[in-house]
């Protein structure tokens, strides 16, 4: 019986293209926006995910970096190091600021790193040094490329001049921003504040659980919040979610409604055009259930094809968007696919309702009376 649905679906090429294309477009709306949000989340958490820290200690109630400010007494370093299970502590300075090259300005998360090779530094260097010495900066390769600077050139960060000593990858963030690394001493001088630190990045001893260490640190020190790397990243993603919830909800609704409208209309007209044939089948002895299955099969098949097309186009955009120089990193998440899959099923189900009602009302006795 399902092959009747297949044949019906492919018989009218125009209707086929409209329904598949319409559903694909509707789902594309949802998929692409999700991919943008996931991409932003990935970029926003890239630094923390690659920091190498097991536990991140911040000012009390500061749970992420993006659009946040944290200040801790530098003296906490020793106390944290003395907590049982802690292997290493790295003080990190952080501020959202700009990289200026001539007249171009790029948003940057500026990280001040202590001299020794610890955690929190750049994780993929494509040219130059892996750690900035005094007077040096390591900046994102894409930013360097776009502003026309290379190794040895001068850029301005926190209002001071730095020589570009290294180029890193994976450090681009949202809307053309990036992560830039300078030496801690330069950071402190530029800020004229020697007593405070933004975060402590903590490594735990082998076999220790980061959750337990985080809890111990919070016990030992007042006015701090200690989270595992995963908790911290999750909060970061949550900030992106909070900012995008409304637009995502609206676009999901729009996509869903377009999908329902296109499918319901094409399914209805397709069934209407075939009502005489469904009547014939009823007269020949087909039960309503048989015919419902044909209609449902047709709806689910259309939506499945629309979904595949929408997904295909999304994957294409994932590859193409960065190539054309747009500062967006699209990323398709499993959760988004599951959600859009669910939406597709609902669209198919809803679009089959009217046709099913239509078929239920067909009188098989009309078959001898022509159309």
């Amino acid at each position: 019986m399902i092959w009747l649905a297949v044949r019906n679906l492919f018989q009218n090429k125009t209707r086929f293209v409209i329904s598949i294309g319409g559903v694909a477009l509707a789902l594309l709306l949802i998929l692409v926006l999700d991919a943008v949000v996931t991409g932003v989340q990935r970029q926003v958490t890239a630094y923390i995910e690659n920091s190498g820290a097991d536990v991140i200690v911040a000012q009390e109630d500061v749970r992420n970096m993006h659009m946040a400010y944290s200040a801790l007494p530098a003296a906490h370093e020793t106390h944290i190091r003395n907590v049982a299970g802690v292997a290493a502590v790295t003080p990190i300075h952080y501020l959202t600021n700009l990289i200026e090259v001539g007249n171009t300005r790029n948003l940057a998360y500026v990280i001040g790193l202590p001299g020794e090779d610890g955690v929190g530094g750049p994780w993929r260097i494509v040219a130059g040094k892996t750690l900035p010495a005094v007077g040096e900066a390591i900046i994102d390769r894409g930013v360097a490329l776009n502003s026309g600077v290379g190794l040895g050139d001068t850029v301005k960060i926190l209002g001071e001049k730095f020589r570009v000593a290294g180029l890193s990858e994976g450090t681009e963030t949202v809307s053309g921003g990036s992560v830039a690394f300078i030496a801690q001493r330069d950071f402190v001088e530029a800020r004229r504040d020697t007593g405070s630190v933004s975060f402590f990045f903590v490594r735990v001893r082998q076999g220790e659980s980061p959750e337990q260490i985080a809890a111990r640190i919070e016990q030992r020190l007042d006015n701090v919040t200690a989270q595992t790397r995963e908790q911290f990243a999750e909060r970061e993603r949550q900030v992106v979610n909070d900012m995008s919830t409304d637009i995502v909800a609206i676009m999901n609704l729009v996509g869903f409604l377009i999908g329902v409208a296109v499918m319901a209309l094409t399914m209805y007209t397709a069934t209407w055009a075939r009502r005489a044939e469904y009547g014939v089948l009823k007269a020949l002895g087909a039960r309503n259930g048989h015919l419902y299955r044909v209609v449902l099969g047709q709806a689910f098949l259309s939506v499945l094809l629309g979904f595949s097309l929408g997904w295909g186009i999304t994957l294409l955009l994932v590859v193409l968007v960065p190539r054309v120089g747009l500062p967006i990193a699209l990323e398709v998440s499993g959760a988004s696919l599951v959600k859009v899959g669910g939406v597709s099923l609902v669209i198919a189900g809803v679009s089959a309702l009217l046709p099913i009602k239509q078929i239920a009302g067909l009188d098989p006795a009309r078959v001898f009376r022509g159309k």
Partner: protein
Amino acid sequence: MNMANATLQINHVTKRFGAGETQVMAVRDVSLTVAPGEIVLIMGPSGSGKTTLLSMLGALLKPSEGTIALHGTTISALKEDRLPDIRLRQFGFIFQDFNLLSALTALENVALVAELAGVKYGTAHNKATEILIELGLGARLHFLPEKLSGGEKQRVAIARALVNDPTLILADEPTANLDSKIGHEIMRLLRAIAKEQGRSVIIVSHDQRIKDIADRVLWLEDGQFKEMKTRAVDPVCGMSIEGEKAAAIFEYKGTTFYFCAKGCRDEFERMPEKFQEGGTGMA
């Protein structure tokens, strides 16, 4: 005839449509018994109740009064949800406009009906292929209906009617959309099916030219069976007319031809050779 052996027994069947002033009595107190392998032709003017009667025989419509029994089972008393199965397995339907599914090939049109009856995909397709080949459509199996001629379409429809091995075939005006030569072929095919396979066939038609293949011809008028009058077919337009009521008569080569209108006679007069095959005159 032995009643217990009958394929179909219709007892005092009446069908009314509507109520009160606008009530129509489409069929009145009709009784009929059809034997296995018998071909019954029901004729009658338009609006006489032929289609209504056929729909009741095919379990598509419930009689207002009377009973219809198939092999002794009173199907007119069965619950609505039992009827699709009876239509599917006991009846084969053949229509005036073939009513094939346009998206399906000849083979699929036939196989689908077997699948509806629960036959597995492969078996259904094999069975459908077999019947289509038998009906001379071996070279048309994978053609869509739009690529078939009228006669071919009707043969596919006959194959579809046969695929579930029905005891009774019901045909409403099966030749109305075919030219007379093809129409005759279809009728001979139906006759062969009845006689060789022992299936009863009930045909509704106003086409006098197929009378000769029927075992019995019944005349329905005003919803009742009446005695056949002298009937003739206008050789020009093919319309069935009562001899006494013909609008014009013309003698040609010793045969009397009857016409529904003077225009038809005039046309016949101009080219009698072209039309003489089409009519039934009285020698």
